[in-house]
């Protein structure tokens, strides 16, 4: 049965049930706690009997990868999601993606809910329903030894790093308005895509401070090696709660609130907090650990040999090879058509090439992943994985570049070659297959390998649509451990290894084209 059908039935069953009865039932359940086997009412956001949780696992301790297996997302949010799934007796699936992709994915119905350490804010609640599950406070953090500030105004003229897509920058902008009105210099805001990069800016001393949540800091205390401390807790009324986000639906929100309340009453919530060291005492430990060495070779080597990195490199390689192969296959007939007579097809192809060469690759990825499902619902189904989306998107993008290479290569083959093939009674196909293509291949090969190498590196953009390629894996590991240099170095080794392999391959293949060079041809013969 289709998913929309199931949803329809659920809506029907709800409509015929009196509201009062539902409320009474919920009350009974709350009293009974989790000991009862009776199924609570299923919220509408559970598609196909599965709770699909979208998260950007770079925010410990709320959501992060707590180990080398990039698919094992851990943290408070995940623990809560697991308890929710148990509560509703449904399986849970975690989908990881870039932070900026979370809300579009929720809107595109790719997730049941977003659980990603996101603050409950009125702005966000205009479009989505939020249910809070954890108290928190905004903190301003600077390098250890920085004297505490007395108010946000003391940040005037200083640089503060925040994670992009979070609401901190909007809040700081508000502070800036007040500062400018008072005739003072505004706070300089720098935005970074991941939380770990935000912290790194403070550690390396590029920015003065960063804005974060206290719970994160408690968890980070060991990794920060006593290098930072809290310099200010601004008295904001907002930024007080972490919330789960769902699509707007009053009934669903009620059901989620009940579920969270139940977890609070039966002690599950307290257990989770204890597990993740959320207590004011934790903050005191911040300055006790000794500083870390400059470069941890053991971290570097274990990253290099980890299955996580190998898997990431494999995905990078696979998506690059498949995309470029597809691009070449598409672009050969395109190049032939573009080298041919003027036609409507040729005009359409010219448009295709301009659009896909003109638009940034990142935008194309985001468009295919987030916008396409709005027009074509089939792309929101589970079969359309980040891998397929990247493959599709990079194939189209790359074909627009490859077609120019093919065209130039075909054009560079002497016209006399085609004439000679014709004069020898060969068919059109035979002339292309045996005379023109082999010669065009030699001309096209070096720029094609260059394109491939650049495509191999472009795949790293796909981390924004949650493809677990090499750079995404690296960032997740960095977010977990804060060992930037070691993990970046390991990623560098993998990328360079792959690139050098293809350069080597190019040299080998070029030897087969000795016929184009008198000296080489002679050398080969002897």
């Amino acid at each position, binding site marked *: 049965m289709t998913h929309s059908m199931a949803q329809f039935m659920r809506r029907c069953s709800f409509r015929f049930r009196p509201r009062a009865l539902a409320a009474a039932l919920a009350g009974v359940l709350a009293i009974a706690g989790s000991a009862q086997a009776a199924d609570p009412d299923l919220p509408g956001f559970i598609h196909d009997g599965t709770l699909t949780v979208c998260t950007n696992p770079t925010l410990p301790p709320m959501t992060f990868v707590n180990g080398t297996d990039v698919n094992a997302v851990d943290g408070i949010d995940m623990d809560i999601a697991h308890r929710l799934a148990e509560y509703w007796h449904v399986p849970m699936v975690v989908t990881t993606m870039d932070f900026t992709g979370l809300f579009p994915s929720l809107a595109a119905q790719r997730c049941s809910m977003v659980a990603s350490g996101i603050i409950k804010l009125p702005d966000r609640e205009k479009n989505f329903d939020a249910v809070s599950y954890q108290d928190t406070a905004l903190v301003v953090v600077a390098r250890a030894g920085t004297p505490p500030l007395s108010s946000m105004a003391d940040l005037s003229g200083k640089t503060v790093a925040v994670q992009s897509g979070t609401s901190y920058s909007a809040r700081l902008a508000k502070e800036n308005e007040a500062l400018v009105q008072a005739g003072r210099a505004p706070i300089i805001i720098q935005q970074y895509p991941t939380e770990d990069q935000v912290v790194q800016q403070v550690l390396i001393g590029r920015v003065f401070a960063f804005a974060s949540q206290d719970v994160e800091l408690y968890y980070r205390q060991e990794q920060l090696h006593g290098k930072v401390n809290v310099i200010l807790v601004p008295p904001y009324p907002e930024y007080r709660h972490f919330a789960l986000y769902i699509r707007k639906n009053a009934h669903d929100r009620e059901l989620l609130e009940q579920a969270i309340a139940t977890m609070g009453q039966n002690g599950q919530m307290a257990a989770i907090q204890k597990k993740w060291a959320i207590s004011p005492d934790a903050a005191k430990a911040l300055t006790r650990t000794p500083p870390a060495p400059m470069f941890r070779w053991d971290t570097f080597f274990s990253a290099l040999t980890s299955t996580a990195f190998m898997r990431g490199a494999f995905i990078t390689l696979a998506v690059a090879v498949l995309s470029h192969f597809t691009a070449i296959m598409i672009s050969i007939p395109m190049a032939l058509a573009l080298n041919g007579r003027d036609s409507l097809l040729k005009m359409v192809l010219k448009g295709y090439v301009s659009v896909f060469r003109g638009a940034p690759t990142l935008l194309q990825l985001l468009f295919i992943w987030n916008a396409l499902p709005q027009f074509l619902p089939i792309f929101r189904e589970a079969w359309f994985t980040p891998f397929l989306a990247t493959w599709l998107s990079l194939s189209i993008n790359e074909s627009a570049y490859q077609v120019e290479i093919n065209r130039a290569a075909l054009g560079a083959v002497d016209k*006399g070659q085609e004439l*000679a093939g*014709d004069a*020898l*009674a*060969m068919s059109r196909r035979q002339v292309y297959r*045996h005379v023109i293509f082999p*010669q065009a291949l*030699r001309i096209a090969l070096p720029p094609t390998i260059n394109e491939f190498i650049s495509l191999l590196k472009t795949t790293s953009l796909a981390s924004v649509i949650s493809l677990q390629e090499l750079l995404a894996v690296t960032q997740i590991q960095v977010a977990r451990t804060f060992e930037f240099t070691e993990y970046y170095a390991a990623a560098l080794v993998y990328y360079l290894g792959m690139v050098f392999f293809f350069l080597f391959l190019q040299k080998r293949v070029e030897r087969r084209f000795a016929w184009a060079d008198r000296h080489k*041809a002679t050398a080969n013969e002897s």
Partner: protein
Amino acid sequence: MNPDPKTMPDPSAMISVRNLSKLYKDFIALDRISFDVQRGEKIVVLGPSGSGKSTLIRCFNRIEPHDSGILSIDGQIINAQTDLTQLRATVGLVFQNYNLFPHLSVLDNCTLAPRLVKKTPRASAEEMAMRFLKQVNIAEQANKYPIQLSGGQQQRVAIARALCMQPEVMLFDEPTAALDPEAISGVVAIMNDLAQQGITTLCVTHEMGFARHIADRIIFMDKGRILEITPPAEFFTNPKTQRARDFLDQMISY
């Protein structure tokens, strides 16, 4: 000697053309050409540059389709319905700049078309190729790539390659024009040799030795038209038109 343009083409002739014309947009490259070439005849086509010599011989294997008039090869009328594979297997063409396939060895250059078009098994295609390569005195280079050969050697390979399709007519389009003097003699010697064997030959060339001693007739063209068709003795001693006289004067001073 000139056939009446109004008559039907001669079915017993190897090549027979009547009122053949060819346009490039509104430029008349060939203007109502009529003549016959009998089996085994050797024709040399002369004329100043741009007079339409290449265009004419390229019409014979329909690399350039003609626009009007009648063309018959080996008794068959050539038009849009003609089986090009069969026509081009019958008519071999050698280009001024050889157009060898640079990515294939000399031997593979010679065997590619027979294997693909005539489905000749590789072994017998190679055996035949070696025979023709011997005939053009280049058998010892069979495994080299074209780039390793001199211009004269490449042109001899191109001739062998065309012969491997076992054509009934050989067309040469200025085969020696790109060669240095030593190389020319080798290629001309092979063309003499072929002429002796009786293959129908149409050759655009400025090699006066070949034109004088081997050709049965000379066709002299100017501005897309045939001005004279005469035996060489008559053409070289007593040209009928002023254009031909001027052309010959230029040839001699050159």
